[in-house]
């Protein structure tokens, strides 16, 4: 079988390695528009922030393709699909026949139609990242300013990264609050304050009307100094190839539960695909899809089906802990809402519950609950009756009665030798007046030694009591 994959980003590269892991023989050719080896786009903001190196975001070793008998055509764009003969046509004129074709063309940044926008840099590829980093380095040296347009996930990560590099940065956002798709207004406000404290100046409800030399002009006519402008206004699926080939296209390339397009020989996965009306912009769904297509095309699991993904958005910005998942905008009329807000501390926690299941959550500010809640959301398991306990894990635990006085006689003081407070008291009553004597009689403290302080405390307390009563 000949498998051709168009797109060598996170979805395409994942598919190739998943297929190869299942089948050593299938002939694989992968086309990638970028000349880089596939890399982890999720980590671009870390590269921008300087917390990851470009080498560290590589998803496959350069020699992986040769080692795994995969033909990689990097820097070669596919310009057409010839469905009649079953081949793709590359920009260099070559034809590559396929039995199965997988489109993983991803998405491209939305560039708003404003004058001078070409002066701005998108934030999508490792090359973009390089450009921004280079500009940021000279900007930091010359006390120049940066403007990031777009207060979604990527824009915030870029702004935080630039601020972390010492570049004064202003974040402009069209909507009334940050990350309005994932966050409610209050969370957006608290996030804004958290970012402000980290050196990101934020303006919401503003529209950029032009990008000029060293400044950005708002629709109000106000001009903001800007030596570096980063555009993070969202992405749109790359569907030209599919549309030109006559495949059904909505917002993305329309696929069924097998991730097949309306041509059974052609699949689409990742950010270019539209499944059940949904286009996913995160990597987790793309990787789930890659595994399913790999199961299907290799015959490993002919019954593999994609049923949609639960979305968890996790902001990757130093000193900002934010997780948002599911339906965060439901109202009290539509769902049970549990909320805790502590603006002063940058903390906001919200649970959205329906039918005793967690269907959405916002967690802003550091919390030990994030792991548990993400898993409850992912698994759709029933929630405990104590909703508050979900927001404040560990708070409900009974206080440990560790003072010698309050401890009941049955309490086990020495775990290693199973010695209770009552036994230590009895031992004391028959004459033992220090830890050594108690240890000799009961073996308490002779295991891990961790109860020595407790035994000392009990003996001391008993001696004290004796003094009091004497």
């Amino acid at each position, binding site marked *: 079988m000949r498998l051709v994959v168009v797109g060598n980003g996170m979805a395409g590269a994942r598919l190739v390695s998943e297929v190869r892991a299942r089948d050593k023989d299938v002939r694989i050719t992968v086309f990638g528009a970028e000349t880089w080896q596939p*890399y*982890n786009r*999720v*980590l671009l903001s*870390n590269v921008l922030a300087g*917390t*990851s190196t470009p*080498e*560290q*975001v*590589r*998803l*496959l*070793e350069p020699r992986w393709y040769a080692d795994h008998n995969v033909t990689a055509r990097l820097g070669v764009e596919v310009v057409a699909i010839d469905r009649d003969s079953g081949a793709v046509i590359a920009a260099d004129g070559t034809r590559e026949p396929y039995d199965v074709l997988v489109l993983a063309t991803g998405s491209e940044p939305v560039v708003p139609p404003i004058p001078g926008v070409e002066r701005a840099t998108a934030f999508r590829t490792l090359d973009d990242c390089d450009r921004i980093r280079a500009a940021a380095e000279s900007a930091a040296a010359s006390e120049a300013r940066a403007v990031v347009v777009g207060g979604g996930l990527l824009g915030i990560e870029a702004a935080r990264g630039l601020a972390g590099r010492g570049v004064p940065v202003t974040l402009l956002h069209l909507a009334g609050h940050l990350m309005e798709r994932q966050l409610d207004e209050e969370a957006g406000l608290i996030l804004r304050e958290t970012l402000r404290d980290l050196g990101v100046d934020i303006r919401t409800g503003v529209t950029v009307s032009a990008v000029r030399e060293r400044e950005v002009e708002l629709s109000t006519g106000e001009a903001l100094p800007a030596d570096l402008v980063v555009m993070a206004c969202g992405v749109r699926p790359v569907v030209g190839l599919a549309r030109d080939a006559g495949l059904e296209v909505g917002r993305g390339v329309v696929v069924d539960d097998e991730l097949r397009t309306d041509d059974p020989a052609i699949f689409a996965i990742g950010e270019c695909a539209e499944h059940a009306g949904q286009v996913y912009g995160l*990597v*987790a769904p793309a990787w789930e899809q890659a595994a399913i297509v790999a199961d299907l095309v290799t015959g490993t699991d002919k019954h593999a089906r994609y049923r949609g993904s639960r979305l*968890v958005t*996790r902001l*990757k910005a130093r000193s900002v*802990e934010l997780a948002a998942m599911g339906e965060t905008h439901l109202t009290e009329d539509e769902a049970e809402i549990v909320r805790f807000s502590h603006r002063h501390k940058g903390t906001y926690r919200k649970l959205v519950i329906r039918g005793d299941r967690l269907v959405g959550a916002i967690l802003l500010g*550091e*919390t*030990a609950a*994030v*792991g*548990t809640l*993400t*898993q409850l959301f*992912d*698994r759709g*398991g*029933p929630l*405990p*009756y*104590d909703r508050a*306990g979900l927001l404040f894990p*560990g708070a*409900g*635990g009974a206080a440990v009665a560790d003072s010698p006085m309050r401890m009941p006689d049955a309490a086990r003081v020495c*775990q*290693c*030798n*199973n010695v209770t407070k009552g036994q230590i008291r009895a031992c004391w009553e028959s004459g033992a007046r220090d830890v050594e004597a108690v240890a000799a009689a009961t*073996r308490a403290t*002779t*295991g*891990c*030694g*961790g109860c020595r302080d407790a035994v000392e405390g009990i003996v001391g307390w008993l001696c004290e009591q004796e003094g009091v009563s004497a």
Partner: protein
Amino acid sequence: MKPPLSTIGAMPTSLSDPAPVIAQVPAGSATHCPYCALQCGMYVTDGQITPREDIPANAGGLCQKGWTAAELLSSPERLTTPLLHGRPAGWDEALGFVADRIGAVRAEHGPDGVAVFGGGGLTNEKAYQLGKFARVALRTSQIDYNGRFCMSSAAAAANRAFGMDRGLPFPITDIDRADAVLLAGVNVAETMPPFVRHLSEMRAGGGRLIVVDPRLTQTARRADLHLQVTPGTDLALALGLLHIAVADGHADLGYLESRTTGFEAVRTSVSAWWPERVERVTGVPVALMREAVRILGEASRAMVLTGRGAEQHAKGTDTVTAFVNLALALGLPGREGSGYGCVTGQGNGQGGREHGQKADQLPGYRKIDDPAAREHVAAVWGVDPADLPGPGRSAYELLDSLGTPGGPKALLLFGSNPLVSAPRAGHVAERLAGLDLLVVSDFVLSETAAMADVVLPTTQWAEEAGTMTNLEGRVLLRRRAAEPPEGVRTDLEILRGLADRMGCGERFPTDPRTVFDELRAASAGGVADYSGITYERIAAETGVFWPCPATGAGEEPHPGTPRPFLDRFPTPDGRARMIAVEHRPPAEDVDEEFPVYLTSGRVLAHYQSGAQTRRIRPLTQAAPELFVELHPELAERLGVAPGDMVRVRGRRGAAEGVARVNDAIRPDTVFMPFHWEGVNRLTNPALDPVSRMPEFKVCAVAVERLAGEEGVA
């Protein structure tokens, strides 16, 4: 027939008196505890036990198991006569019967018709002799042991990374001086309490302790940081920690350049495991992962130690490899005061996996399919290398094949109780029942012994001499400290008795020291080289670290090797090998029908299958029964109150236990100890592709309250 006198009794008593401390100690035999791999030093005097101060592992400490160990010496449950189909029999009759039946099975099914199953509690001498008996007397390839269920994943990972598997490649006292220790799936506060003294010492000196465990165990309670990982996701966590270590600049690039290979590929592989993704898989918050890495990365002496919690998975080898990679990235192994180690479990878990009771192994940690190894060992044994069998089935595969067409029809079992300790135990019971012949050597009537055609009563721990290799790779001397009861024999004598009846008795000496001398020769030149170790040296030095090769006449004796990796790793190029590994979900994940994870483990008062400790009163008082630990949230949902009887049901079986409700466990998980029959009816025999370790630590179950069983608590 009276057992022959052990010549060990004639050993000069001065050897048992290691210098200064001994003066205050009552006269008695300086020996070691019968239980775990810490092998605490103790004196046994007329059935009384006193801890030894001169053994660094316990330095005067003992847990309740150790203090009460002598009770089994005088237990009324002690077996003192062979049992043939349940009735008392003489040794001649019993051994004659076994030899005849073995002969018949071999005649019909060939040598592989007879299998041998050993244990990680057997002394080095017994483990060695058992391997030799299988290969030389029975000529069967079908031998493995319960250590496969213990350390095999760590062993496989250490071998492929370092070229050597020695539990801790440093003295345990190095822990005392560390700045940071990460324990992955290690609960020493329950399994080997005196170990905690070293952690306490470390913490008293400002060191930090990080514990990875799905439960807030007694060990985790002592930690500065507890990463409460979802069962079956330790591998993802290790990948995430490594990702952070590299991203945050904690990788020791100079060390990686000079002492390892494979870092590039590993770094690339962890690119896919960014912290937020790992958080979603493991449930461990990103902030805690970062803190853990910071603590380890900033420490000048740090250790990463794994235990069964990380290892007993169908991906255990890769999980350990991921933790080894983390340690290597931080530049720890082979640096004095730092390193990676496996906290070995069974008493002789270390030595037991070095000298040939493993299916693929010959003494000295040699590979049975290595022609040079076969030649060397065959020469020591006086046989033709071509006559040595090849590798056999791994422990679970062996048990699973018993009585099947093509599988063994007879089994000789020493030092193990698989009916309780093997995964999918209900199935294992069926397989054992399908045998033509089951022979069990034990000193009490364990659950497995109760099924046997022939039970051979053997000596225990304090009644015989031998060597044990503890978790540090330190070879220790177990001395005879009590007279065995009339009628029992040592395992060495039992093997001799069988060999006599098979016409090769002279090859199987019964004196432990003689066997040890032969082991030394057989191990010479191997990875685990014991040839320079003698009983006298062990006694004088309170233990000798292997490798310790023999030296020529007139040369200084080899000092032993406390820290084997300081100069180089025993790989062909001297470098540690980093190997990229991928996380995958548990072999059996939770779903609608079985929505809760089951994990299994230990409690302080019991050891292994409990065959010994469940017969000691103070221990059964401390931990009387099988229980099911569950979180208050889960208990509330199921309507379970503390003390209720609950049934835990899975795809392979069910078990019942008393509910213990506490928030030390994750709400999506229940815990059951495996010292009683029960939990292993549920556990999953999915095997690790490299180590053949079963997935003891995670499977999917449903939990329900048993109607009409109101709790009393």
